[in-house]
């Protein structure tokens, strides 16, 4: 079973959830990232996601390992879609199971934040009057050493 995947097909949410079901778990949280129509008042028509696929899978696996080390008894599965996505389409599904519920929320939140830091996936927004590659940190963060700092990578 592949717990960490990049796919061109629509994501089956239940299949991602099924990967983390365990008898020891009392809680499963999922995060489902969907394509939103309005961002800062601007109307998105559709998105294109692109990935450095082989590295992206490795980085998702790394996030999984980080979570399973940090939250005992947790199990993680992540699928990210690439290609063209329309409004309300599902871009990413993160499923985390843990024995107790507080951990399931925290570990899941950690996963999405890490994805936005270290997983080589990019989105291009298409509007009526143009298109642009979006970088979360494009305006706000530089990498003087050419890579994320240790804190960013392994925090």
């Amino acid at each position, binding site marked *: 079973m592949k717990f960490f995947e990049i796919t061109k097909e629509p994501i089956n949410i239940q299949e991602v959830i099924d990967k983390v079901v365990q008898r020891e778990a009392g809680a499963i949280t999922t995060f489902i990232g969907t394509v939103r129509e309005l961002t800062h008042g601007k109307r998105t028509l559709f998105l294109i996601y692109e990935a*450095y696929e082989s*590295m992206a899978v490795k980085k998702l696996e790394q996030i999984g390992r980080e979570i399973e080390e940090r939250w005992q008894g947790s199990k993680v599965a992540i699928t990210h879609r690439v290609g063209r996505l329309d409004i309300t389409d599902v871009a990413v599904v993160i499923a985390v199971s843990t024995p107790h519920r507080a951990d399931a929320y925290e570990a899941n939140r950690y996963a999405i934040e890490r994805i936005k830091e270290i997983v080589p996936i990019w989105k291009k927004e298409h509007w009526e009057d143009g298109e642009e*590659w979006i970088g*979360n940190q*494009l305006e706000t963060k530089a*990498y003087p050493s*050419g890579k994320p700092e240790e804190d960013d990578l392994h925090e």
Partner: protein
Amino acid sequence: MNKVLFFAHLRDAVGKELIEINASGKTVGELKEELTEKYHLPRMETVMTAINEEFASNDEVIQDGDEIAFIPPVSGG
């Protein structure tokens, strides 16, 4: 020889997904500077580099056969 991969706005700027060049012996920083000049790559101060699918710092030295990738700020999720 080395493959150098470009993504997102860098791919648009270069006009190709990858180029093949001999970069062995150069540091990541040197290669970055060279290609930035050659292709007029924008906003390279925000771009990370990977060698063989692992993030690498500017002072790392490239070996023959290494796959280099320039990683603009990511926006998955």
